[in-house]
């Protein structure tokens, strides 16, 4: 039923029609209004100038740190006053809180960028120098003549070998333990979970101390790369287990039930359904575990020592590694070793960055989502299976 209003012709005396309400616009919560930006910029300039006046004359501060703090405080004050003059109290406190919160994010990004940028500027050139990856410290001491080849090849080799040992030891154990906790379950699984949680709390230096006292001293194995690998895997195993468990929990239960309903056994279900579904997440878990331990210094410092020359054999003799190399050389009186330490820092950061990017590329997908190549193949198969439409 519709109600039709009688059409009334506005006579000369009729009241004017009610004004239509203005078009409603969608509120963009995450956008900053241009006039806010203008006021903020003005307040920033005013704050900087105001602090410049305050700074040398009145306040008991000196150095750029003091200036920055004064300038930021005066910026906030002026911004609050200027916004309060334009808007009500509630809106003004919103703008000021927004400014403070954005500053926090900027500080965090600034810290990361400064750390990574500074290390790269100091060490990148040295790392690109050919000797870095080919020579060792064997023929070099602080008083060597110029032109003696010196590099960190021994440290690079040691880092990769120790990482490899840690991966071989901790990844299978960690992943299978996570499978047990999530797929088999039971009361005992809860005990394992609690203990794994507890072991993530173990400080890396304590893990290193354990391997040092037990493996290096008590068993009399001496310093070696294997001991470093053991210490790193003590660190890495709980990380891998926890991350794997999270990934396995993300696999939808419906998939498992469908597989079981079709008559597959538990192992078949795990092997053909759960693990393929969680593959990208599993790879990410392992890679992030590696990134976590590759820069651990304290354990390798305690148990692997550091050789000056190349030691390919991780099972006997001291073995250098990139973190240890930095630890020994960053305060070295020799400029050459000093700059090599920065180069080693860049190499370490590069390894972390590569691992991190890999993890992002692989782990960017939800469980079960396939990559571009797999999708293309699936489309091709589907096309070949569909009969050609006959006209």
């Amino acid at each position, binding site marked *: 039923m519709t109600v039709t209003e009688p059409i009334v012709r506005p006579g000369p005396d009729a009241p004017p029609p009610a004004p239509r309400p203005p078009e409603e616009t969608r509120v963009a919560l*995450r956008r900053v209004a241009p006039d806010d930006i203008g006021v903020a910029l003005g307040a920033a300039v005013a704050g900087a100038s105001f602090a410049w006046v305050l700074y040398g004359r009145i306040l008991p501060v000196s150095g750029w740190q003091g200036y920055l703090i004064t300038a930021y405080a005066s910026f906030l004050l002026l911004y609050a006053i200027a916004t309060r003059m334009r808007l009500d109290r509630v809106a003004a406190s919103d703008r000021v809180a927004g400014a403070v919160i954005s500053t926090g994010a900027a500080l*965090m990004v600034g810290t990361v960028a400064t*750390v990574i940028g500074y290390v790269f500027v100091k060490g990148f050139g040295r790392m690109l120098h050919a000797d870095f990856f080919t020579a060792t410290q064997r023929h070099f001491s602080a008083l060597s003549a110029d032109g003696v080849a010196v590099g960190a090849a021994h440290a690079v080799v040691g880092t990769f070998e120790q990482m490899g040992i840690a991966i071989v030891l901790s990844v299978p154990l960690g992943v299978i333990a996570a499978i047990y906790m999530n797929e088999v379950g039971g009361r005992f699984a809860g005990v394992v979970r609690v203990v794994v949680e507890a072991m993530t709390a173990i*400080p890396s230096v304590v893990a290193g101390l354990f391997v040092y*006292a037990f493996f290096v001293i008590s068993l009399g194995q001496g310093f070696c790369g294997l001991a470093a690998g053991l210490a790193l895997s003590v660190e890495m195993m709980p990380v891998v287990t926890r991350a794997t468990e999270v990934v396995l929990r993300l696999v939808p239960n419906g998939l498992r039930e469908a597989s079981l309903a079709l008559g597959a056994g538990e192992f078949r279900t795990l092997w053909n359904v759960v693990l393929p579904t969680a593959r990208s997440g599993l790879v990410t878990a392992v890679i992030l575990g590696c990134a976590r331990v590759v820069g651990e210094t304290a354990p390798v410092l305690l148990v692997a020592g550091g050789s000056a020359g190349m030691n390919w054999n991780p099972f006997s003799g001291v073995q250098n590694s990139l973190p240890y190399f930095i630890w020994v050389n960053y305060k070295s009186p020799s400029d050459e070793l000093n700059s090599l330490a920065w180069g080693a820092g860049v190499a370490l950061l590069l390894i972390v960055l590569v691992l991190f990017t890999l993890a992002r590329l692989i782990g960017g997908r939800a469980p079960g989502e396939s990559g571009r190549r797999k999708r293309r193949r699936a489309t091709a198969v589907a096309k070949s299976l569909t009969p050609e439409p006959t006209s």
Partner: protein
Amino acid sequence: MAHPPVFAPESPEFIDSPRRIVVRRTRADHAFRWTTRGVAILVLGLLVAIGGYLLYQGSSALDRAGWGFLTEDVWEPKSGTFGVRGLLTGTILVAIVALVVAVPIALTAALYITEFAPRRLRGLLTSTVDLMAAVPSIIYGIFGFFVLQPQLIPVSRWLAVNLDFLPIFEIRTIDVKARFVDSQFSSSLFISGVVVSTMVIPICCSVSREVFGQAPPGEKEGALALGATRWGVIRAVVLPFGRGGMIGGIMLGLGRALGETIAVAMIISFNTDFSFRILDGQGSTISSLIVLKYGEADTESISALMAAGLALFVLTLAVNTVAGVLVARSRSGKSTEI
């Protein structure tokens, strides 16, 4: 041929009872179960063995030291007098300084990511936080030693001159009003704490970001519909809902700060004095004790170090357990349906 009554719900003698479920596992399934169970037992055994070994080795040292372990400042295991009073205080002070610097930055950054950042920036910032967590601590250490330390010395000096009425900023060893004392402000607990804060920020930030992101959207929209500003939404919905997780994240950061080793060992000048004065260049941490003293390879020294490591482990374990409980509680059963 008479069929038994298969389905007769109307009949009075029909009793509905659940079917018995019988699982018949294949041989492969049994093997799978026993293999995974065996590996889990192995992992559990390894982890318990580590804890047990620490406890066993440490307890013999604790027996020798007695209560002196908690009240003694010197570290001379060979003569039987050693204790962690000064080191424990130093560890906690470094962690507190780190939290004071890190928590405001981490929480505001987490709020920015969840509430303010445009969609595209959000992913980028999240990656940045994860990357910050992945940077090795030795990198933060050399950065702290060469870059932060020289910049923080004037700050230390300013604190010492202007805030010396607070006991923690007091200086006893040097005359701060004199010129040419800047270098004596280096290697302090304060500077170590600031360097450690760079490692606390990402942990604290990523946990609180996750928790803030789970604030119920219905209530956020309700607050907006009632005329709240973004800050109003944060204060009325996001922070109250995320409080438990936020505190949990801060405590996880505290656990990391307590166990941090190499960055502190690079900055600090090692001594075991007991002092609350963070600018005074006194005091050190348990983890740097282990790194700097492990070379004394006689049995007593090692077991004394084990006891110190055990004390550190117990401390971080307690902090992490409380944090884990807080974070888990904030995640479960708090979503609202609208």
